[in-house]
């Protein structure tokens, strides 16, 4: 060997040694890193558990009216399926007519204060009213029944992984055996990678000319799902194999299997991914794992290969075919007997409708998140599996969404000038719905399209309320007598003529709508017709500071300047504030705290928080009743009377609101049990040119008609100390038989008029009869 050859040999040897040692060093470092990654995941197998938001539960009681179509729709959304025979398993129901009977096998549900075990119930109807409820198993009579809340949406980061983590011991052996048989039959023989399977897959793939079979072990699949994506590269495959080897070296087969059973992806319900065998059993069969039949178990195992393509929701035929393949494998491996096999083949797989969780209340959920963020970080909300129970009524929410969107569209059709160019300048609106006695926010629509704008006008938009503010002026007036001021009653005569209010060296002249003045009118008529001039006079007599205080007392939180124009609603408030203030009137003078979050539970079912109903009596029930009675007139005779013509006939009170410059249109209205505020306008404060009665009232009317349909008709109940007398609306005195129109007016006892109507006196012949 000459010198130069020896030199080349030496250099090559050094280079080889260098490359080998570098490779070993790098390899060790790389392995250490992979091992750390695997260990971290196994030691703390933390799957992100999305927070879940639930609607309010639904209470059924003897006497309640149920519209069966709507109720069946609710059952469907809750995952109940209609059967032709009496329900035998949870989640089934049957409805029979003549006599009308609904049988439901209730689901299990963990409520915040108790875990409920589902049982069959039988609900009998008389007409649309529930006449009897009984336990279907025992025949015992029940008087009320709670139907579980609906899942509104999940709170998650990037993807919604729906999963219930189970221990290996909780998974029936047949489920495990079936999965191993079809996915990795040599699981207990290999050490993470299985050369036999790889060679077999290679052979099959070469023969078929494409990739038709994988050789991945269950451990490799787990590593892929845990750490790696779906990319089909050699690098990924090697990494997957290395990790599988590490996992098998460090952990037992049982630990690997348990992680696999919880990790595996098994289907999709809208934005909700179904992960793990427990969740899959619920999703496909509405059953716990230990109740699965042999056929269902086989299908569950078979779905792992292609959960969406083989899903029975998509194709029953494909699912049955796949199930049968697995069953054949199970009988071949002697995991099931031939008899079990034949019985499983006969199992009928029913086509089921896939009910997706669509989040029909995005504005409500945003509002809720904002409230929750005070106590919970985003990570906790999206990954800790919190269950959040709310006051939301999904049925009402859907009605609110629909009526607002349809109402705004109709307005644009009727008034083409409302169609503006550009997204920032489209006609907008908002609805908020409250239950006055509890303060629960039942529905909230913060704008026309959540996709286009997430700005929630219900609580983020401060707008002038216009005449919606007037009831606070009149309430201050009615209360003024008892507080040492000038005394007002519903029949106090007011001057409705042009006038100028001097204050602080300035002058303010309120004008009526269309510059129309009515001379002397009763307080009732001034409110019903929303007369600016008369209202301003009342505010001046009562004192604007007192008006402001009343508004605050009822629930307005925005700062209100004590200036004369406040009487006509010149300050800025949100629709939510307006809703709270008027719900105080609807609730007989008792103010409630707006309530969305009712309970928050952690993933183990422990209650983290409960927000109770909070009440405060802020005005007397007598004053509240008189105001409600006055505001009923707005709908019956005043600016809101079109609601009656459009078919909303229930006892209800309300008030229109239009700002001076026609930028905002409002209507707030309520029955004793339900209150809704509607606002319509433009975000950029451009002119709407319509009154509250024209723009907001139609939407309110439509909403209330649909939301209250089938519910009992209730009226405001006069509290003790109220006297109701018939009054002539023109004279404001006691009505005579000759008065053409009569109003049932409410007074504090002793304040009622004693003089009969001078405009329509009784004749001498009538006197004796009248007296």
């Amino acid at each position, binding site marked *: 060997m000459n010198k130069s050859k020896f030199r080349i040999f030496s250099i090559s040897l050094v280079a080889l040694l260098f490359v080998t040692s570098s490779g070993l060093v790098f390899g060790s470092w790389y392995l250490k890193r992979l091992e750390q990654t695997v260990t971290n995941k196994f030691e703390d197998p933390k799957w992100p558990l999305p927070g879940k938001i639930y609607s309010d539960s639904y*209470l059924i*009681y003897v006497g*309640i009216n149920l519209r069966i179509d709507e109720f069946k729709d609710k059952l469907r959304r809750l995952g109940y399926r209609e059967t032709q025979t009496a329900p035998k398993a949870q989640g089934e129901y049957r409805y029979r007519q003549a006599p009308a009977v609904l049988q439901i096998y209730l689901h299990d549900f963990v409520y915040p204060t*108790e875990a409920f075990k589902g049982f069959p119930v039988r609900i009998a109807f008389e007409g649309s009213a529930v006449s009897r409820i009984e336990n279907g198993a025992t025949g015992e009579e029940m008087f009320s029944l709670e139907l579980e809340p609906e899942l509104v949406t999940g709170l998650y980061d990037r993807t919604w992984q729906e999963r219930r983590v189970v221990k290996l011991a909780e998974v029936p052996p047949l489920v495990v055996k079936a999965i191993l048989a079809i996915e990795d039959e040599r699981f207990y023989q290999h050490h993470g990678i299985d050369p036999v399977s790889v060679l077999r897959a290679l052979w099959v793939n070469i023969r078929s000319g494409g990739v038709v079979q994988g050789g991945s072990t269950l451990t490799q699949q787990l590593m892929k799902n845990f750490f790696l994506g779906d990319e089909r590269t050699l690098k990924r495959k090697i990494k997957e194999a290395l990790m599988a080897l590490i996992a098998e070296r460090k952990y037992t087969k049982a630990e690997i299997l348990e992680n696999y059973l919880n990790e595996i992806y098994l289907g999709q319900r809208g934005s909700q991914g179904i992960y793990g065998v427990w969740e899959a059993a619920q999703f496909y069969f509405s059953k716990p794992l230990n109740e699965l039949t042999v056929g269902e178990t086989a299908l569950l195992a078979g779905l792992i290969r292609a959960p969406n393509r083989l899903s029975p929701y998509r194709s029953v035929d494909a699912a049955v075919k796949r199930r049968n393949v697995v069953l054949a494998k199970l009988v071949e491996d002697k995991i099931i007997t031939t008899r079990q096999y034949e019985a499983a083949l006969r199992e009928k797989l029913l086509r089921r409708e896939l009910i997706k969780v669509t989040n029909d209340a995005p504005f409500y959920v945003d509002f809720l998140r904002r409230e929750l963020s005070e106590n919970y970080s985003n990570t906790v909300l999206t990954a800790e599996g919190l269950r959040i129970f709310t006051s939301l009524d999904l049925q009402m929410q859907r009605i609110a969404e629909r009526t607002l969107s349809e109402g705004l569209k109709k307005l644009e059709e009727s008034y083409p000038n409302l169609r503006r160019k550009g997204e920032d300048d489209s006609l907008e609106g908002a609805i908020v719905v409250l239950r006055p006695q*509890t303060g629960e926010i039942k529905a909230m629509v913060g704008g026309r399209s959540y996709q286009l704008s997430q700005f929630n006008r219900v609580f983020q938009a401060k707008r002038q309320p216009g005449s919606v503010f007037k009831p606070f002026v009149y309430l201050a007036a009615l209360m003024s007598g008892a507080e040492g001021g000038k005394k007002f009653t519903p029949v106090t005569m007011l001057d409705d003529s042009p006038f100028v209010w001097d204050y602080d060296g300035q002058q303010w002249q309120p004008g009526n709508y269309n510059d129309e003045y009515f001379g002397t009118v009763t307080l009732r008529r001034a409110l019903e017709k929303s007369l600016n001039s008369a209202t301003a006079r009342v505010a001046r007599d009562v004192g604007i500071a007192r008006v402001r205080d009343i508004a605050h007392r009822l629930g307005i939180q925005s700062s209100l300047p004590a200036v004369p124009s406040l009487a006509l609603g010149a300050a800025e408030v949100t629709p939510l504030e307006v809703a709270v203030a008027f719900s105080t009137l609807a609730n007989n003078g008792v103010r409630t705290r707006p309530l969305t979050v009712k309970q928050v539970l952690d993933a183990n079912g422990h*209650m983290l928080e409960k927000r109770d109903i909070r009440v405060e009596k802020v005005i007397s*029930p007598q004053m509240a009743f008189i105001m409600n009675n006055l505001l009923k007139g707005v709908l019956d005779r005043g600016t809101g009377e079109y609601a009656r013509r459009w078919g909303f006939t229930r006892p209800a009170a309300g008030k229109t609101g239009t700002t001076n410059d026609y930028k905002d249109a409002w209507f707030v209205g309520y029955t004793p049990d339900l209150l809704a505020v509607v606002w319509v306008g433009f975000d950029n404060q451009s002119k709407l040119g319509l009154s509250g009665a024209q723009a907001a009232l139609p939407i309110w009317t439509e909403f209330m008609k649909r939301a209250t349909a089938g519910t009992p008709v209730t009226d405001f109940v006069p509290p003790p100390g109220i006297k109701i007398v018939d009054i002539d609306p023109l004279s404001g005195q006691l009505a005579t038989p000759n008065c053409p129109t009569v109003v049932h007016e409410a007074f504090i006892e002793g304040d009622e008029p004693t003089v009969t109507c001078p405009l329509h006196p009784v004749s001498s012949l009538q006197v004796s009869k009248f007296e």
Partner: protein
Amino acid sequence: MNPVFAAMNFASTRKLFIGGLAASMVIIFAQSCAPRPPYRPPAPPPASALPVTEPPAPVSPPPVQETVRKPLPQEPKIKEQNLKSKPLPPSVALKEVPKEPGLPTEPAPSPLPDDSSLLAKITQGTSPQRAASLRLTEEGRKLLDAGDPAKALTRLEKTIVIDSTNPYGYFYLAKAQYLMGRYKQSLTFLDVAESRLSAEPFWLAEVQALRGENYRALGMAEKAEDSYAQALRLNSGNRTALEALSRLHESQPASR
């Protein structure tokens, strides 16, 4: 960068990576073949240890246990409770009841008949809402008696959703709040209950007596005493007021 250099670099890096991986696999495979190694509700506070200010609401996690939901109680099963009139203890005589200043000193009326049964208020003319609400109120009352105010509260909140005019729902909501130590909230619910009760002296006396209990818990002894006195003027047989006044007098013999 020179393309030849770049190619060489890439080739050597790849060689290094594949070499490393191969070595790692050998190590791992060799290694892997080697052998492997009840909720308990807060008791009503004792008179001596009552806080002067309202404490934060206790939120104890109630146990989540599987229970088959029971149907609402049947009418005849009305449980005896502390609302009922019982014979007066010998130490308490009506003449000892302090009179509220400015109120007429009328002779104490005889005890009112017990009107505490809510199910007895359900008659043929009762609206379905009121009937359902009363039944739920009764259920809530039983939960309160059983010492579970948290669960009772959830049940009782439904009573006013179904029928906001049901004063008894508000009364028992006030009682639940009192038992959970939220005295100010309890007082506000009592305001509402009172405004919805009309011509029902038995219940108005209950409202006053519970109001007295709340004032006592808040350390407002004078207001408490006035409320008990009011309760007894409405119903001389009101047990809560009688016992409370008796306790008050025993603890303050010198001040009277």
